[in-house]
């Protein structure tokens, strides 16, 4: 069990007042807040060790290099990866997916091949595959959802076939909260000779994650959603895949020998890290992992199941509310998308903000899913380890208030 009150003290922003109210931050699926240990890791680095890495022989450069490279080990341990060299630092999950599409994709996808994603993918796990499919005359196919918002495994079985070269799927939906059956999908994909890319942008911060158990071939995620700084994402891939992939961006650090007309490339993982990396934030990301490992991801997950269960029940006490996604907290993460009958999510977001409650409103970068759900957007409250049941009570109270402000006129 985690002591939430103690945890909250590690997050300075939680003392922030918004419109006279204490901040209730329920926008964690967009980005998480950061503990002092992460903030301090970054400023300590700049105050004591800052230097460019890899190519330096002086003390600062050596310290910076060690600190930066040590985070790779931490990331590997955090996601159960066997080899440190399989961890590539990117800017964010989005860049990591683009990297795979532009290197693995362009060398492996041929005309007539099929790429399979799901109906609830984030634009970041859709656009790169749209482009790749267009460029390679391949086909992009979609696994549909069940009426209650789960991944439909019947649909998966019908779209994944021997033409499938890649299944790219979210570990947890950032709209519905749905957790997908990754291990099953992995078996299905592998049975047809396809690879599995897991978009862990939502999953890795909230669920215990092990790439070997999942049977993944690629995993991507972003540290800013995982208590870490902005500007750091991860691409993990099986080393033999990375070895075979051509480099992504060209420049300093990713080369071995360079002539005017040709170049040879560096070893893994540096082959994929061109130019000066985001050193300070990678070190900050290491502090985020330390923080979560000390708490234990099982405990984080348990807390979020408890919160989500509480919230789902509380929502049902409201009039005119519709919740999107599964109603069983064990099948989903703490991301609750909802609609009130007569209030546009955008208006709702603003009204809640008057009480210091931060939620998100809009399409959540999932426009195709919105089209399927026949809405233009949803309101979304999403939780993390520092959220409390008291905050959910405040949310529910404020939603009742909102109904008053906007009136109950049953039009449109």
């Amino acid at each position, binding site marked *: 069990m985690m002591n939430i009150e103690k945890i909250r003290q590690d997050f300075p922003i939680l003392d922030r007042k918004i419109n006279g109210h204490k901040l209730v931050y329920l926008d964690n699926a967009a980005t998480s807040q950061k503990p002092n240990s992460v903030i301090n890791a970054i400023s300590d680095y700049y105050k004591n060790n800052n230097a460019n890495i890899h190519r330096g022989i002086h003390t600062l450069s050596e310290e910076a290099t060690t600190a930066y490279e040590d985070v790779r080990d931490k990331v590997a341990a955090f996601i159960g990866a066997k080899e440190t060299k399989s961890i590539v630092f990117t800017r964010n999950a989005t860049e990591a997916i683009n990297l795979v599409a532009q290197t693995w994709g362009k060398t492996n996808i041929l005309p007539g091949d099929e790429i399979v994603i799901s109906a609830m993918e984030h634009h970041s796990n859709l656009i790169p595959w749209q482009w790749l499919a267009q460029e390679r005359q391949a086909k992009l196919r979609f696994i549909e959802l069940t009426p209650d918002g789960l991944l439909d495994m019947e649909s998966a079985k019908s779209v994944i076939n021997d033409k499938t070269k890649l299944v790219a799927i979210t570990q947890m939906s950032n709209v519905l909260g749905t957790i997908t059956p990754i291990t099953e999908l992995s078996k299905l994909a592998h049975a047809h000779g396809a690879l599995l890319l897991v978009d862990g942008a939502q999953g890795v911060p909230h669920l215990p994650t092990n790439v070997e158990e999942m049977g993944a071939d690629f995993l991507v995620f972003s540290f800013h959603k995982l208590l870490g700084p902005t500007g750091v994402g991860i691409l993990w891939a099986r080393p033999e895949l990375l070895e075979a992939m051509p480099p992504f961006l060209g420049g300093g650090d990713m080369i071995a020998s360079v002539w005017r007309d040709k170049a040879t490339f560096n070893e893994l993982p540096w082959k994929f890290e061109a130019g000066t990396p985001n050193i300070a934030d990678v070190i900050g990301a290491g502090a985020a992992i330390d923080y979560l490992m000390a708490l234990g991801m099982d405990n984080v997950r348990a807390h979020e199941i408890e919160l989500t269960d509480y919230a789902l029940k509380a929502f049902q006490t409201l009039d005119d509310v519709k919740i999107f996604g599964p109603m069983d907290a064990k099948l989903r993460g703490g991301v609750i998308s909802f609609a009130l009958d*007569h209030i546009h999510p955008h*208006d709702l977001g603003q009204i809640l903000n008057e009480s210091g409650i931060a939620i998100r409103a809009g*399409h959540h970068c999932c426009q195709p899913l919105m089209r399927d759900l026949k809405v*233009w957007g949803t309101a979304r409250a999403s939780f993390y380890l520092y959220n409390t049941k008291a905050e959910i009570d405040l949310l529910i109270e404020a939603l009742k208030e909102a109904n008053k*402000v906007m*009136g109950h006129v049953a039009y*449109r």
Partner: protein
Amino acid sequence: MSLTDELYRETILDHYHHPRNQGELNNATIKIEGVNPLCGDEITLYFNADDKTLSDVKINSHGCSINTASGSIMTECVKGQSLENVKEVINTFKTMMLSKEDNTELSEELEELECLRGVKKYPVRIKCALLPWNTLQQGLERLSSGKTDNQDQYVEK
């Protein structure tokens, strides 16, 4: 009166719940979409016009109260007006929403727009209010360029 109450003053709620000139115009001279990628608001604007007058206008809104109300009031202000007038109305409204000072005068015909003045205090919402107007403006540009291929999309910046 809280800030929110002020924002959602009655006129806005009225237009939000009973938007005017909603729907489609078959065989419209111009059909144009407007999108605010940041929040996902989308509208489709239809109007009939020759080179002098905007004779009819309809709008299909799926936006928030501000967006819907702004579009609804806009249709009332421009329908049947000369193109010259329409441009002036657009200018007046955009000046009101975008100028630092808060002293844009609204003539009697435009006084319904008054309710949107409060939106200025909420910078993120200004775009909600502007989307129908910017979309209309782009539609007029297309009209005068003669490219009425109905393939256009206005993207809010």
